[in-house]
């Protein structure tokens, strides 16, 4: 389980900061999941790749929801600043230094077990004391529940004065029915829609404490395993099934993993570790420039130009091409290994 540092959450400004942190947190899972998924490409592990891909799509959804909520309360999401991408390996944004350090690595079951499942691990039922100490650490689930609670408190107080905290321009929010049904990505207009949006983030990530399957809000009855359990399916190599008579069991269909064709990517690559006159460096720079362009494009998307999401989709595809190029280039510093994507903020080509 990832533990986040305690944050102050009382004022509207605190709430906006917390939502900005949640955007950074949701984003921070994308590079490690994406890197693992790039290394699965064309290796005969499509089942695993599709599962990770479905999780990635939902992380992107969570980021979008967080941006919409921040927009709704009059905030301005920032996605294109140099520190937006965390350093890998390192703690997740807001995470405690002594906690999990998340790397960029090729796919392995070990990575799934030791990192991805830890990121997505649900809260255990815990006693929440009535007087929180200032230094108390939070789980990601607690963090989101705290945001919800603050929204309720601040909006109730605002309403009492005939005001509202939902003062943002709704046209700046992004909905994208082409890819996300309106039951999952919708405009945040009031307290209820904000709570509902954040519920989707919590539920898809962690599931409930008793049921690994999530019927996401109004999803028309379709169920899917929460992220933690989807990663567990990959780790177990089996599908999670409800047991007759209650409970759950891993069974068929099997989810086999074949590591033969996985490119042997040196972990946590860094652009500047490559010699400047190497193909690894040049393609790393192209990858990073594209990733930075993607963040610029998403920044525009969530700051008044929601239609830019279409352009962002195009960059996501070209990113994959650069990643695949990198994974085919020998790492100049590490014989026997290949280069890989480093997800660094680069503004000059």
């Amino acid at each position, binding site marked *: 389980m990832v533990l986040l540092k305690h944050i102050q959450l009382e004022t509207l400004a605190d709430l906006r900061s917390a939502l900005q942190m949640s955007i950074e947190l949701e984003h921070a899972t994308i590079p490690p999941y994406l890197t693992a998924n790039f290394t699965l490409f064309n290796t005969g592990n499509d089942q695993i790749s599709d599962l990770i891909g479905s999780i990635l799509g939902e992380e992107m959804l969570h980021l979008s929801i967080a941006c919409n909520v921040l927009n709704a309360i009059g905030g301005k999401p920032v996605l294109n600043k140099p520190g937006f991408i965390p350093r890998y390996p390192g703690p997740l944004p807001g995470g405690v230094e002594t906690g999990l350090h998340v790397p960029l690595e090729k796919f392995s079951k070990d990575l799934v077990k030791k990192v991805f499942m830890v990121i997505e691990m649900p809260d255990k039922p815990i006693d929440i004391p009535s007087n929180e100490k200032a230094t108390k650490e939070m789980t990601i689930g607690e963090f989101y529940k705290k945001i919800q609670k603050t929204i309720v408190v601040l909006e109730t107080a605002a309403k009492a004065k005939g005001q509202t905290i939902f003062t943002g321009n709704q046209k700046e929010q992004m909905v994208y029915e082409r*890819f996300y049904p309106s039951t999952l990505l919708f405009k945040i207009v009031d307290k209820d829609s904000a709570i509902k949006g954040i519920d989707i983030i919590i539920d898809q990530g962690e599931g409930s404490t008793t049921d690994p399957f999530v019927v996401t809000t109004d999803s028309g009855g379709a169920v899917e395993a929460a992220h933690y359990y989807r990663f567990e399916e990959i780790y177990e190599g089996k599908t999670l099934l409800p047991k007759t008579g209650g409970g759950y069991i891993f069974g068929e269909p099997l989810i086999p993993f074949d590591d033969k064709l996985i490119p042997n990517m040196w972990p946590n690559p860094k652009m500047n570790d490559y010699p400047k006159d190497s*193909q690894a460096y040049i393609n790393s720079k192209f990858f990073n420039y594209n990733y930075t*362009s993607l963040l610029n494009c998403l920044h525009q998307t969530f700051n008044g130009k929601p239609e830019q999401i279409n352009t962002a989709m195009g960059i996501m*595809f070209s990113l994959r091409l650069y990643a695949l190029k990198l994974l085919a280039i020998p790492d100049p510093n590490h014989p026997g290994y290949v280069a890989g994507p480093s997800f660094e903020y680069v503004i000059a080509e």
Partner: protein
Amino acid sequence: MSYLNSPRLTFSGKFQADPSTVNNDPTHFNNATFDPSFQDYQTGNALNGWWNPDGTGNWRFIGCTITSVTYQDGTSTNDPLLDPIIGMSIMDTDSRTAGKIVDLDSQQQMVSELWGLIVRIVSNDGTTLMKGDYEVAAFTNIWFGRSVDLSADSAAAASYQSIIKNIKWDTGISNSRYINELKAVSADQLSIQFTLDRYNDANTDPSFTIGRIAGSIGPSSMNEPKHFVLGRQLFPHTLPQNLQPGQAQTCNYAVALIDEQLKSVVLDFGNALRFSTGGVVNETRDLRLVIDTGTLTPAYQEIGKLNYSDPNWYLGTSGIFSFPLTDAQLDLVANHPLAIVKVTNTPNNVFTTASTITYSPVYNESIEYASADQFVFRLDANDPCSIDFYTTKFGKGYAKTIQFQDDTANMFGPTPPVVGVPAIPFFSGKKLAEITTDSNGKATLKFTAPDPGNPRVYIDGQVYAISYNLSTQSFATDCNQSNFISLQIYSGPSASDVVPGWDNFIQPIMQQYANLYPLMSKGIFNLADKAVVDANATILQLVFSKDPTDSNYMPATRDLSKYRKKIILNYLQGIIDQG
């Protein structure tokens, strides 16, 4: 106004061109004979998929910086302390996919166009001062003898000229005199030109897909051509097509502009000289820009020496020279041609310092000149086509007749498949097609593209080369061989009653894309697989229906006919509707 007017800036650096090369061999379009080895890199004895089968199609500026500016009053600087724009960057997009470099056709690869390119001027802190869309343009004036130390494509150079439009300025309170002048003079549209050379096509080299670029940006007016300068056209003394076998081309086409207000002549020599190892100029001749007075004495009135010997000359100036003209020269040059001559100073004998100066011509002005503006067209069957032409004499518009002929057989290939048939009726009558320009030297050629049917069988549509010349000239012997029209005309619906569906119509088209663009088919979507296409119908519909000038448009090769696109989009809509 164009990039040769002021206020003008020069820039230089590197570029990346990353085209996929599986489609360089037209027979690779034939699905029936396509072999998986055509997707491999070429080896010593096998061409396979040529030198870059994994190309993305991307075209980018890399590390390009502004090297000099010339203000409206004609003064210049290359000192960042005098104008902070010196050293700033010329960049492409920072928030979408890169622009694409695209051949017109496998059988006409000599007019590659740039699609979806964005041009920005970026300050050293990353602020975009100017951002605009590069209007689609093809290269011209390609020559393969540019770099004598290199071979094949690496030895070549070619130039692009176009405009930047849809401009957004964010100059704020810029303390750059240059950017403020540029915006004041030409806020809506800019002219941009650059020459590409020394391209690296060795796939194991760190600089693979990267080459050298030097260019210029300046003001632009709406009523002037976008893709060439209405100026003084300087032709090598012996035209490249008239060289003897084995005789090297030592220089290439150039253009000069007489700026009457500034009383100066500006010469673009960017794609003119040869280069050698390390990118240094491979030239020793003492070259002078002169007015060729013909019968007067002296025959050549010297304007100035072309001082190209400074090691930073090319990258520092992009090869642009500027010389003042006296009032007398300004009068003289209005009705006498420019020329570039080699000066030889021969001592008369060993006993005296007296010497004899002899001049030998290196460039002559093509006094009368005809040029199309846009010269590459992608048409669908029955599309109307309009091509703007200009005729000039001493760089000024004048009325003249231009004649056209179908020159496909001389220009395009390799074959098979067959090119240029069936002929376009408009260009194949008994009498040559012709137009006469008005007194401003302007005329528009209009014709309707016929439906070529399916003469190439496995490549859609047909390509045509239409050459042109003034009625007093011959294209073959008098004209720049790059100045002709390249037409791609896609086929319309076939006459058959078969309802086009996945198996009988779409799959073969998608199979061809999957064959020819392995990076896309292996890295993103295998379009040949119905299950993949159906599963991604939404995103495919999005990219196939974009405007072709959008860098995200699919197919990146911009070679899908209106008819085929409609069938594919209908199919995708059907899949989407089924949920």
